[in-house]
């Protein structure tokens, strides 16, 4: 299945202008291929509502849709839930979070009807004086408030999103799409700042949301700051892949501060927190300087921009058609990258082209790595130089340059060694650098998009820059070409154009917009299931921000949490089991493949969740938004936006032209949403499905099939580099430099105009300039290294399957809380090495305090040999601030309380909050 790639133009989707993506026209050509034929259409009891089995996809964690469940109904009560064996991904399994969907449904803290506040005073423990109102009143109020902004200054509307059970949080018209459609620049993810893992993948391999590893062929995987699914307890295939791979002898190397389960099963290399960039550089140094044949030369020459000639400025030297030139060592002349006669791209040397002295970008790249020796890296990482070398050698050895494998009758390069990274490294001050250079390291191994290597979890095609012949950075990595001053987005997107989210910055600017240079003040907040007060950091600031606006609408809310305590209007949505909605599952987050030969095909598709009859007076979140748009008189805008971007899956990405599309788009025009008509969410889904799969294949058909693989891949086609064998990956970060070339002068202009921007962003513009580098750059004077000496230790967070992050009742479920209290040694505890504990007068079981320059939290001492002596660790995403969710939650140990997302404490490119902090510990 070869897909044409098309020209991608940035689409302007404000007020409905812009062309429909050509992808839509291809929709019907994307053949739908069911993975399994179901002999009998399963009876879904949700229709009758009182007894039988209810099928659907699980949304009890961020990987919503990765797993499908079967819930048993008896007299209208859910009496059991388990994994659906019909779904290949989770193969009948279901994780602890999935099971708690029952407690999520029957949570007594649920908001049962729309509410409005009567007590104007807002505070964590202040009774809001909720009064139940009708949906009519609630939706009218919301519509009126938003419309007010729309009619005066739409920028006054601040939308926040997170992971909510319905789709608007993250799909349908979510990820800010509906807010952008209205025209506000203010759409910000509250949890996204802890999830800044997209830049490197979006930049180098057109991968969103994540870059995964080929579980089927890998032999050696180095894991930095990530759980590949085993530590997190993911049922959707990642843990199974890991276990199956253990059975076949795959070597997993976990580099980090803690001997997690993944580390235990493979090799644990204890490394100081925040030192991963040094290791990545050192490994690349070894591959280029120390190891003979230490990198995949043919791949680097022919599949990367390493041989592209760059001038003294670091820009490409261009030739005919403005295409970058390569020096052909065979002909001793410069040729464009797509010249058919190009035989031997030079990686070394200095040349002159039309009077311009130039050299291959590879030379600059290699030079930049010269000093990053293993000895140098040992200083930062505390990993012995010998071990660093050993890993580099292993990567090269296992990669087996030149080896091939037969898949499906096709011959593909086999490179079964890879490095994979996650939020533990991206949420550092040098996170962007480490993210992107880990991808570059994989280029040196020649494994990008090939068996054994790294693949986008959506298996998508590479988006080409036709002129440059390279992958074109997209989504948040898209090269910066616009700048506004005064700034437009309250999240300071103008200064951080590559941010995934800078919500913590937005909380600050909201409190004092004028100080930050804004010429307007925010007025209305619409939170789509988002809770900035606990989800990231700087709770006090977020509280202040919520108090600083005129009206706060909590749309798609679930329980009386901290956000509700600062809201004026509550529009509660159904519990997860009650929603009838569908989703285009983007793909797992760890393994891209596993022993199931159809995994890649079935890992991506449209899944339906069949809702039970709602218990309370709640409303589907999508329908809430549709109603609001309708009552604003803007239903056409909603319909247009859906028509153009699709409405199942990541519609907000559609404009970036990802292939296969990130959302289910309208292929057959006749099913598009008609102007002037208000459709329910279900009707919307039904139409887009029919428009794609056929007139008789709408929601009812999906209900029967349970899942429709959508643009899944089979055989050799799983590997994007097999589908596109010519595109070059960007070892040399020319576009990043170009982004900086555009942005930095703008920032300097602002600074020189008299507005002390550097004071606001608590960051040097010069350092920003250095970060937008084209070649490896090591930032000296990192915040993490320059904390007051009274904070001698490092503190980090780690995954606990029970408390993966904040979503619905994740930390509120009484069964998991109770079991943790009884059987988890690290329940509400701080992991401390015994020697460190002794030094600080702490014993197992004592209550202790972990204090950073930003805050403190309490926990029980748990001494363990599985943590570095210089580090303490707090597990899970817990800790609440309002007793309205249960008083015991106030006592939970909270990592967020010791972090900060202040200006200066984020990665300056992708905005990730630094989630390693310097701390001191003492007895409570």
């Amino acid at each position, binding site marked *: 299945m070869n897909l044409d790639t098309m020209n991608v133009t940035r689409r302007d989707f404000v007020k409905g202008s812009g062309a429909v993506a050509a992808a839509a026209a291809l929709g019907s050509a994307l053949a739908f291929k069911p993975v399994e034929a179901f002999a009998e259409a399963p009876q879904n009891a949700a229709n009758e509502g009182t007894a039988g089995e209810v099928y659907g996809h699980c949304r009890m964690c961020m990987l919503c849709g990765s797993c499908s469940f079967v819930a048993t109904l008896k007299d209208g009560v859910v009496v059991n839930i388990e994994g659906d064996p019909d779904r290949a991904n989770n193969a009948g399994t279901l994780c602890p979070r999935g099971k708690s969907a029952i407690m999520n449904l029957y949570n007594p803290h649920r908001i049962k009807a729309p509410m409005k506040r009567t007590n104007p005073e807002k505070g964590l423990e202040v009774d809001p004086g909720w009064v139940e109102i009708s949906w009519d009143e609630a939706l009218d109020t919301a519509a009126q408030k938003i419309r007010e902004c729309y009619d005066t200054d739409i920028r006054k509307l601040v939308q926040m999103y997170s992971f909510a059970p319905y789709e608007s949080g993250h799909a349908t018209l979510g990820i800010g799409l509906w807010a952008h459609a209205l025209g506000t620049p203010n759409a910000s993810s509250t949890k996204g700042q802890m999830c800044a893992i997209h830049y490197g993948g979006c930049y180098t391999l057109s991968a969103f949301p994540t870059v995964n590893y080929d579980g089927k062929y890998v032999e050696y995987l180095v894991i930095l700051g990530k759980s590949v699914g085993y530590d997190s307890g993911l049922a959707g295939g990642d843990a199974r892949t890991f276990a199956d791979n253990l059975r076949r002898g795959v070597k997993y190397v976990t580099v980090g501060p803690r001997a997690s389960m993944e580390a235990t099963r493979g090799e644990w290399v204890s490394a100081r927190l925040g030192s991963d960039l040094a290791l990545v550089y050192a490994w690349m140094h070894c591959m280029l300087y120390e190891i003979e044949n230490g990198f995949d030369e043919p791949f680097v020459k022919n599949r990367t921009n390493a041989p592209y000639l760059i001038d003294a400025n670091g820009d490409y030297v261009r030739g005919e058609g403005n295409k970058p030139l390569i020096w052909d060592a065979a002909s001793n002349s410069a040729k464009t990258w797509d010249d058919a006669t190009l035989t031997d791209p030079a990686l070394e040397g200095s040349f002159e082209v039309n009077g311009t002295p130039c050299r291959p970008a590879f030379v600059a790249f290699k030079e930049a790595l010269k000093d990053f020796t293993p000895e140098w890296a040992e200083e930062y990482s505390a990993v012995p130089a010998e071990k660093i070398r050993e890993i580099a050698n292993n990567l090269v050895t296992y990669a087996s340059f030149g080896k091939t494998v037969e898949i499906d009758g096709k011959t593909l390069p086999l490179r079964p060694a890879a490095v994979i990274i996650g939020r533990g490294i991206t949420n550092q001050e040098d996170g962007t650098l480490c993210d992107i250079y880990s991808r570059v390291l994989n280029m040196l191994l020649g494994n990008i998009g090939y068996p054994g290597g790294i693949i986008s979890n959506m298996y998508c095609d590479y988006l080409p820059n036709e002129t440059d012949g390279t992958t074109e950075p997209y989504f948040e990595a898209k090269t910066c070409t616009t700048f506004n001053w005064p700034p437009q987005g309250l999240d300071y997107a103008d200064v951080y154009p590559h941010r995934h989210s800078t919500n913590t910055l937005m909380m600050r600017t909201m409190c004092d917009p004028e100080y930050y240079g804004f010429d307007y003040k925010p007025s209305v907040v619409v939170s789509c299931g988002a809770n900035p007060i606990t989800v990231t950091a700087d709770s006090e600031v977020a509280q202040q921000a919520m108090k600083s606006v005129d009206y706060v609408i909590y749309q798609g809310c679930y329980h009386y949490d901290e956000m509700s305590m600062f809201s004026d209007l509550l529009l509660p949505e159904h519990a997860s089991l009650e929603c009838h909605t569908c989703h285009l599952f983007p793909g797992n987050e760890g393994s891209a493949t596993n022993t199931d030969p159809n995994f890649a095909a079935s890992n991506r598709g449209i899944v339906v969740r069949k809702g039970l009859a709602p218990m309370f007076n709640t409303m589907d979140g999508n329908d809430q938004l549709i109603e609001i748009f309708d009552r604003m008189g803007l239903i056409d805008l909603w319909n247009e936006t859906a028509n153009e971007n699709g409405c199942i899956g990541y519609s907000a990405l559609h404009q970036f032209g990802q292939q296969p599309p990130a959302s289910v788009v309208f292929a057959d025009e006749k099913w598009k949403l008609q102007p002037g008509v208000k459709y329910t969410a279900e009707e919307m889904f039904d139409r887009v499905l029919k428009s794609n799969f056929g007139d008789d294949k709408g929601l009812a058909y999906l209900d029967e099939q349970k899942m429709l693989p959508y643009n899944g891949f089979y055989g050799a086609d799983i590997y994007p580099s097999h589908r596109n064998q010519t595109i070059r990956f960007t070892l040399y970060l020319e576009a990043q430099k170009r982004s900086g070339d555009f942005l930095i002068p703008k920032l300097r202009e602002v600074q020189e105009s008299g507005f002390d921007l550097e004071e606001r962003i608590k960051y040097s513009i010069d350092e920003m300039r250095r970060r937008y580098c084209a070649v490896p750059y090591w930032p000296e004077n990192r915040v993490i290294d320059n904390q007051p000496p009274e904070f001698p230790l490092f503190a980090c967070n780690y995954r606990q399957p029970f408390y993966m992050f904040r979503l619905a009742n994740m930390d509120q479920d009484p069964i998991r809380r109770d079991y943790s*209290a*009884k*059987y*988890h*040694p690290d*329940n509400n505890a701080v992991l401390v090495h015994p020697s460190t504990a002794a030094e600080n007068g702490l014993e*197992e*079981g004592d209550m202790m305090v972990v204090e950073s320059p930003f805050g403190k939290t309490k926990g*029980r001492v748990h001494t363990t040999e599985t943590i570095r002596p210089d580090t303490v660790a707090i597990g899970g995403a817990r800790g609440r601030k309002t007793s309205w969710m249960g008083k015991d939650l106030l006592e939970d140990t909270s990592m967020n309380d010791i972090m900060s997302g202040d200006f200066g404490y984020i990665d300056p490119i992708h905005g990730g909050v630094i989630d390693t902090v310097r701390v001191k510990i003492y007895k409570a």
Partner: protein
Amino acid sequence: MAKTDIAGTAPRRPFSKTMLAVFAAITAVGVGCWVWQLMSGLQVTGLSDTNNWGSYMIFFMFFVGLSAGGLIVASSAHVFNIEPFKKVALPAVICSTVCICLAAAFVLVDLGGIQNIWRLFTGPNFASPLIWDVCVISLYLIINILDIVWIVKGDERKVNVLSRFALPTAIAVHSVTAWIFGLQIARTWNTAIMAPIFVASACDSGLALLILALVWLERRNIFRTGEKLFKSLSGLLAVFIAVDAFFIGCELLTMGYPGGSEAEALKVMAFGATAPFFWFEVVFGLVVPFVILVFAKNREKRGLVILASALVVLGVFCKRVWLMLTAFIAPYAEHVPTMMTDYLSYDAMTFGSVAPFYTPTLPELGITVGVLALGVLVFMVLCNVLLGKASADPAPAVAQKSEG
């Protein structure tokens, strides 16, 4: 000093109605607590899955022992024809009967599903030591009652024959109770010497309790034991203490010597959670009383005899406590792989740190005290009724001035 007096010349002071009323009231409170427990379940106690036997079963063990001890003394007297001891047979049997009824009561209040108790009789599992105990305790109770009846009636011959059954039954009753614990491979109780230990502690605690009861009865002139007999009984008690100490010593040595998992349990007893109880028993329940009673001169001093006997009883009680609780706590000291992790933070090795593992609640104590009060109450009633006429000293002694 005991009053020595011609039998019948000093006024007999039966247990007063006030005393009876007080203990009845305490019993009533206990019954109330029990009703609460029946309605709400055993959750009102301090028991847990980790430590699922506590106050009730501790007292059950304790009272089976006390009971057996009394009867062993009384029936050996008849079996081995020890005249002086025959004289205290009735109070001994009264004591023993009351104690065994208390033991049964403690088991009953400990049951979570008492409504199913008839199942013990319709479908007993004869492999279970509990069923053995039901059988042997029932037999034992019958023997006790018959003994009382026939002693009161003065039927010497029947009593003699009965005693030949009573003695082995008394030994069996506490051996079987020991086997409830000793045969379980899962716990530190698992040892062959458990039955001998129990029998030995039955003897010394039962006899000590008997001595205390006899002192009390003599004080009130309900029953006169006399100097000589007290001295003999104390001497016998010293022997029993020595045997008990010997058996315990053997067990401790066997536990500790190999330095394995049993040694961990020993550490909990010697230095850890149950250490206070262990050391009280060893020092004040065994060594001190033995040292007191081994000397004839001391055995003549009523005060010392009372002290030693009281210490022995308390000491054996402490033994029941450490025996029961160490079994539940010790796995945490050695990190047996199957235990509840949240208890890891409770330090099994801190001296006296039993409370986090098990602390009896007020209702639980209420029931316990109530049962004890019932026992005292029944004892007092039986003594009032049955001991009016008998005396250990039938022949008037040399008339002496009454003291006090």
